[in-house]
């Protein structure tokens, strides 16, 4: 993966395969503390202790649910290469939480990448999924939710030329205001 926003997209696609209805994405950038944290929570089927322990092993897979494979090990590798770590907390029937931390200024830390494209892909590609996205940078924060879009454009289908344009503009402006290049 070229950047961290692609890892986020991948982990959320995992969550939808695990029948999540709601996902939450938190990105917290603290350059002053040399810290970048990404947290992804879902309410999918979850994994038992054994499976979540093996989930970071690239050679382990549960074929029937496709919940694991290379996605998590790739993201764990990206975190470890940047002086950070990745941990998975999961409960059967409750969901899964993936928390990745990075040294913000580490030379091998991948750039965050295009969060607008990631959120837009998730939103329009999964119309029934509830998405909450919160991005913090140096004390400022921006929040986006799929329910805002659905309420705002109540009388329109989700995949509509005007809705696409407005959502992209809203995300770009919101991220720009907190100092993130979307």
């Amino acid at each position, binding site marked *: 993966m070229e950047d961290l926003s*692609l890892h986020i997209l*991948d982990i959320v696609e995992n969550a*939808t395969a695990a029948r999540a209805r709601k996902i939450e994405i938190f990105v917290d950038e603290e350059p002053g503390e040399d810290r970048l944290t990404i947290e992804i929570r879902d309410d999918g089927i979850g994994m038992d202790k054994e499976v979540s322990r093996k989930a970071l092993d690239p050679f382990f897979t549960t074929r029937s649910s*496709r919940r694991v494979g*290379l996605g998590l090990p790739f993201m764990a590798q990206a975190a470890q290469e940047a002086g950070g770590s990745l941990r998975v907390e999961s409960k059967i029937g409750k969901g899964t939480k993936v928390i990745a931390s990075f040294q913000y200024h580490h030379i091998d830390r991948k750039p965050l990448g295009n969060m607008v494209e990631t959120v837009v*892909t998730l939103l*329009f*590609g999964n119309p029934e999924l509830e998405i909450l996205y919160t991005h913090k940078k140096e004390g400022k924060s921006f929040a986006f939710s799929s329910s805002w879009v659905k309420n705002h454009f109540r009388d329109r289908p989700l*995949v509509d030329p005007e809705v696409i344009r407005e959502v992209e503009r809203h995300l770009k402006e919101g991220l720009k205001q907190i100092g993130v290049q979307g």
Partner: protein
Amino acid sequence: MAKLTVDDLKRIKEEVRSSTVLREGGFRAKVNIHMGTCGIAAGARKLMAVVLKEIEEEKVKDVMVTTSGCAGLCSREPMATVEILGKPPVKYCDLNEERMKEIFVKHVLNGEIVEAYALARGSETTY
């Protein structure tokens, strides 16, 4: 004849749902982008961006967009499946932004299959 199991019923329900969602939703076509780890690493998100840009610019209102997981042909990613209402779905492989745009204009908007990029016909579960 073997008894139907709960799993059989679930499978039948899913098959019927996937074959009627286009018609019931009032859509004319569906574009599915394969978003497994392999697809994403190969550039699938760019394909989605191209499709959404085309929908926006051409003011298209009857096309449904979905994503799915790995289809098992990781070396041929990025892949996309195009389905026109009432026609068999067509899988495209080894795509890039230019090819996706060409497929959108020719197949999705005008109904002509772009054979040069087509892999096979089939369908998969969308979440």
